[in-house]
């Protein structure tokens, strides 16, 4: 690549970044379409995404079989939970249950103990149902339909595909330790949130 092309590409990138962002400033009220609203609701809310992240880290630490179990177990559970939340009654204990998920899943990641595959599947199903329910209830408040639930499940699928695969691929011991430290942070967050909410 010649220098002129590089400079041109850099200027092009610079120009794109200067594109007036204010035109998109009110997406919080307009939304980005039901599918992406559903997907972004999971990924942009710390209380929704952190339990999913902890589950995916746990699956990655436990190996390929656990990663596959979460990949195929989490999205249907999210979809079922989201459907129940969208059309079912509001459940008062969902907030407390999400906090418990942070505590338990974060603690399991930090401890890095061997777990039976069945337990990982149960964790994926439970986490998917609870987080799905909370997101489905939010979709009901926003009066979004079934397409938003597909967005929620797709976001879960993306997380379950990428994060465990990344963790399984880690070869150096210190990288696995970094994952455990992240788990300890999530567990710590669970303890703090328990104090706020209980």
């Amino acid at each position: 690549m010649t220098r002129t092309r590089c400079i041109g590409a850099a200027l092009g990138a610079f120009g794109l970044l200067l594109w007036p962002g204010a035109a998109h400033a009110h997406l919080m009220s307009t939304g980005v379409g039901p599918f992406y609203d559903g997907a972004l609701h999971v990924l942009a809310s710390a209380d929704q995404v952190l339990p999913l992240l902890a589950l995916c880290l746990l699956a990655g630490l436990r190996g390929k079989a656990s990663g596959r179990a979460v990949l195929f177990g989490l999205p249907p559970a999210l979809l079922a939970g989201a459907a129940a939340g969208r059309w079912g009654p509001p459940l008062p204990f969902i907030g407390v249950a999400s906090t418990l998920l942070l505590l338990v899943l974060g603690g399991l990641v930090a401890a890095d103990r061997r777990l039976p595959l069945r337990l990982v599947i149960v964790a994926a199903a439970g986490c998917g149902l609870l987080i799905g329910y909370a997101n489905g209830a939010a979709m009901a408040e926003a009066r979004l339909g079934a397409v938003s639930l597909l967005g929620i499940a797709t976001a879960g699928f993306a997380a379950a595909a990428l994060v465990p695969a990344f963790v399984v691929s880690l070869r150096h011991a210190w990288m696995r330790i970094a994952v455990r430290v992240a788990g300890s942070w999530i567990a710590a967050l669970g303890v703090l949130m328990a104090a706020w909410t209980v």
Partner: protein
Amino acid sequence: MNNGRQMINRVAGVVFAMVLAWPYVAWAHERAGESGGFLVGLLHPLSGLDHMAAMVAVGLWGAQLGPPAIWALPVTFPIVMAFGGALGIRGVPIPGVEMGIALSALALGIAILWEIRPPIAVAAALVGLFAIFHGHAHGGELPPGADRMLYSLGFVIATGSLHACGISIGLFHRWSWGRMLLRACGGSVALLGVYFMVSGLV
């Protein structure tokens, strides 16, 4: 080699241009209290030199002790700190919190200065004990209107990052000059601990 350098320079130039063009307009429509909650939590451990010194010292001591302490101490600290934070949030009083924080800097500094090597369980228990004081101080200071989750997330990340700073400095321990550097850092932390203890008493 020359091509590699040129490529690095070009990439650095593009990254620099992107940083300059960071779109601040995206902050215009934050939900009330959200980025404030995160940033306040993130900056809270950095706002006091006593907190910072003690948390960096945890990482330094872990690196000095080597495996498994190098990861056991930074894993132990945030979880036990959160229990202290929970006590602060629930309004459970702990006497002498500020003195405990100053004492943590003094004790950890001395441990690094003298290269004290207790059994891992003792080191983890000591660090855990001090973590309760630090957590209690953070837990009771949520600003009104801030998002609880993001505030907590911010201060847990900041705490972990300070440990990482300590571990990074502690990696010099493999060289003889690095060992001296670590001990000097320990001595500085201990002196800070003395200063904060005296300030607390006067």
